[in-house]
């Protein structure tokens, strides 16, 4: 396999070859975790799938918070492309405001670049307050903002004073870091500094938060449905269908479930340090993983009622879907998959595919870090390079007033052996021997590896969906779910199974080659006409 990979990359110029081979690893042995290079700068001209820091901050983390006005300070494109394109669903609750159908921008013009855009930003905030009277406002910076030196922090501070609502500035210029990842970090920092912990609700029993769950296609709602049924009280989901009010109270929960490790692990860690709330790595994608996660959670609380109820709900939910899951498994069993998603789904969906008898033979992330590949145990060995060193690292201290000891030291240590408590093992451990793992996969490699490994199905995003479909391989989006969903939880697993089976079995595949290309067409030639010419 190693030779095959090297042959695939032969076309690269020397420098590119040298760099790319560090980002492609083969898991040669079952219990081996080879080291990968990740979270480094993108090679210019390589046709990456990556986006930018702004997309990670505003597009991913902030955007879904439904009751805040998110103003994008920049020319129109940045806000336009993040308008309704990620399917982070939200419901309007009576009397509350939902801004997700709107796109707010300062629409910077040439004069704003020349003379600075602070004045326009100030005016835009004023107009937003007058029109909508929101509870809070975010301002996201885009590429030119940092270059021309607009001080969005000063403008935000001034507006906060003036209007008596929180106005948060995010310096998430597109060129920061090397991918969306930097934006996650920047968003996490500000939410932690300014929003989490300022609420004063009285928590109920069994209170939890779900972190890194963006409610794509209603995933968060499906997860919530099951957790509610067992008896948990979800304080905040960050940030799918999330609200400012809920996030303020996130420090009141007893535990954090972390679905997307990459985008939210900063907050999970900081909440643990500051408020003493441990986190558990969750995975609600896949039937077995969902069950496992529910059991981890019940075990965490160690409450007999919860443990019993958990098993009851699992039984009920399974009864609802088992027959149909079995039906789809029969249809899909033995096929192979290629997964290339952002920073977490490439791992999570392998579990769901396993439920359906599909093996993942190649996978990768756009912008994950080594810990998402190799597990959190490698964090201390990760070096920060020049492209990432300007992303602010914030340190939080124990909050003397709100810090709680939720688990005794002994219980913490005991649980740590049983459940992924404040731990994530990464994608590599989950993969089979001989599978290929690629970081920051580009267009050339997508084509090559599809040709070499011939997977039956490809799961990625919109930019490569049609490329791969044109190659004759079933291709589904795992960012937008091809406008379907939910895919999470028990019911979601079934929706996913149905969608995949539809993709594999749609009759159109049989029509790709016209019949006249495979059947002899000699009979009935128009000889006379031919002669007449």
């Amino acid at each position, binding site marked *: 396999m190693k030779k095959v990979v090297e042959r695939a990359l032969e*076309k690269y*110029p020397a420098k*590119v070859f040298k760099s790319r081979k560090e980002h492609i690893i083969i898991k040669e042995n079952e219990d081996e975790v080879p080291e990968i290079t990740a979270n480094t700068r*993108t*090679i*210019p*001209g*390589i*046709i990456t*799938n990556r*986006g*930018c820091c702004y*997309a990670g901050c505003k597009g991913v983390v902030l955007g879904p918070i439904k009751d805040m006005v998110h*103003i994008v300070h*920049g*020319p*129109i*494109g*940045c*806000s*336009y*492309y993040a*308008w*309704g*394109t990620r399917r982070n669903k939200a419901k*309007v609750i009576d009397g509350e*405001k*939902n801004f997700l*159908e*709107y*796109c707010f*921008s*300062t*629409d910077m013009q*040439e004069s704003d*670049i020349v003379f600075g855009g602070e004045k326009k*930003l100030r*005016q835009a905030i004023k*107009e937003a307050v*007058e*029109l909508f009277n929101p509870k809070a406002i975010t301002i996201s910076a*885009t*590429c*030119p903002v940092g*270059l021309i030196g607009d001080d969005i922090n000063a403008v935000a501070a001034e507006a906060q004073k003036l209007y008596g609502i929180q106005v948060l500035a995010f310096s998430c210029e*597109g*060129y920061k870091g*090397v991918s969306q990842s930097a934006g996650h970090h920047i968003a996490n920092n500000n939410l932690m500094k300014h929003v989490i912990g300022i609420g004063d609700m009285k928590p109920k029993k069994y209170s939890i938060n779900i972190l890194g769950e963006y409610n794509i296609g209603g995933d968060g709602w499906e997860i919530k449905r099951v957790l509610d049924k067992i008896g948990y009280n979800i304080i905040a989901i960050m940030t799918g269908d999330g609200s400012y009010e809920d996030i303020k109270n996130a420090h009141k929960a007893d535990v954090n479930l972390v679905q997307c490790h990459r985008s939210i692990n900063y907050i999970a860690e900081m909440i643990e340090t500051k408020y003493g709330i441990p986190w558990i790595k969750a995975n609600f994608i896949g039937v077995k993983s969902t069950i496992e996660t529910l059991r981890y959670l019940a075990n965490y609380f160690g409450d007999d009622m919860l443990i019993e109820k958990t098993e009851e709900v699992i039984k009920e939910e399974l009864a609802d879907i088992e027959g149909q899951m079995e039906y789809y498994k029969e249809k899909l069993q033995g096929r192979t998959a290629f997964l290339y998603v952002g920073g977490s789904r490439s791992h999570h969906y392998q579990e769901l595919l396993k439920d359906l008898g599909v093996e993942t033979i190649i996978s990768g992330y756009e912008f994950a870090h080594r810990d998402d590949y190799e597990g959190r145990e490698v964090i201390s060995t990760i070096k920060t390079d020049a*492209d990432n060193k300007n992303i602010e690292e914030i340190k939080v201290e124990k909050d003397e007033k709100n810090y709680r000891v939720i688990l005794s030291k002994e219980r913490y240590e005991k649980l740590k052996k049983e459940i992924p408590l404040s731990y994530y093992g990464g994608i590599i451990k989950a993969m089979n021997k001989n599978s290929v793992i690629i970081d920051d996969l580009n267009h*050339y490699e997508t*084509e090559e590896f599809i040709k070499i490994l011939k997977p039956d199905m490809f799961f990625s*995003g*919109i*930019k490569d*969906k*049609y*490329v791969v479909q*044109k*190659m*004759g391989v079933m291709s589904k989006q795992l960012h937008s779910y091809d406008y379907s969903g939910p895919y999470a939880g028990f019911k979601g697993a079934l929706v996913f199974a149905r969608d995949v089976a539809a993709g594999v079995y749609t009759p159109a595949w049989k029509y790709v080659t016209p019949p006249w290309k495979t059947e002899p067409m000699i009979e009935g030639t128009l000889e006379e006409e031919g002669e007449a010419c």
Partner: protein
Amino acid sequence: MLNLTPKEVSQRSALRINPAKTCQPIGAMYAALGIHKCLPHSHGSQGCCSYHRMQLTRHFKDPVMASTSSFTEGASVFGGGSNLKTAIKNIFTIYDPEIIAVHTTCLSETIGDDLKTIILQSEVPEGKFVIHANTPSYVGSHITGFSGMVKGMVDYLSVNSGKPNGKITVIPGFISPGDMKEIKRLLLSMGLSFIMLPDTSGVLDSPMTGEFNMYPKGGTKIEEIVDAGNSYHTLALGKFASAAGAISLEKKCKVPLSVLRTPIGIDATDQFLMALSKLTGKDIPDYIEEERGQLVDLMLDSHHYLHDKKVAIFGDPDTVTAMTEFVLSLGMIPKYVLTGTPGDGFNAEVEEMLKNAGVKGSTVKNAGDLFELHQWMKNEPVDLLMGNTHGKYVARAENVPFVRFGFPILDRYAHHYLPATGYMGAIRLVEMITNAILDKMDRECAEEDFELVM
């Protein structure tokens, strides 16, 4: 839906809400895809490139290839020269296009990268080309970017070699591959030799064959762009998208030009064909006249559902202007006409049209947005909304029949195969408009008023 939009219109000078435009580079990327074997390249940080590819892919449901300089913070401070040079080398080695068409973003424009010089210093293999257009996102809109890239093609490539080719150059403007195909069909129907620049048909409407072809069959060939300098006339369809390229071709290669409306609707198509006929002395063939007659037949057959109906139209200036003219010819009243693209020429042209048709009390605005359009509709409702996918929220909120028209259409299939231009496109539009209106009548009328024949 859109519950927070107040009826009362307040003046906004800074906060843009729900724009009716996007930024320059996506237009340039689209134009560059209209060159055969071209890889568009975005000189900025990679988020732009991903967003533009994403948006185009969602509109066309087809692969959209482009590369990027992937600026880091360092490059953003010290200049992106080495990023672009590295990119050019990598692109030619790995992806082997015939030509790279570079556009810029607000990032590289703000730092002032000198593209011409960087390209001159780059390693470009023998017989291959690198061209560029400056497309600052903080000026104009995606239409400006399209226009800039077409101009870039002419400025870099077109040459008057003193050997007239007897061809007419047509710059079709920011329209879909289905439209470009229809315009080519009309040109062919008259037996004309022509160069269409750019041409995305065969690129963004490519067939399923079981093989991915990074550079599909379609696109204007480089030698055609070069040869455009030898054509005897340029027809620029749509002044916002196409005039700059045509003017450049006149300046550089002395090719005379005419600027016409995008041929949407009966008047603009008549003008287009008449211009061709006058320029070339060729007749308009019978079967095209027959199509026109069918369109007029349809206009008469369906007029009672359309007459005096109020329409709100939004989108890109050239196509919105032509659509306004068309709905006037259908006896409808363009109540609100709006583009997000700035430019006073838009208002003047549309207002003139309304005046000539004797329509009073309409609102025309450039550099407007959908938030304001929605507010107008709350104050004085319309019977039909026409525009891109983003209009569906307004249509649902106000329960107005909605016709998807323009760019982008993200939520329907097959539209990019089919024209809105020419008489055939106009027939399709009348079908779409009447369907939208009749569907609503069918859905909402009392049961006793439900009609079999309409």
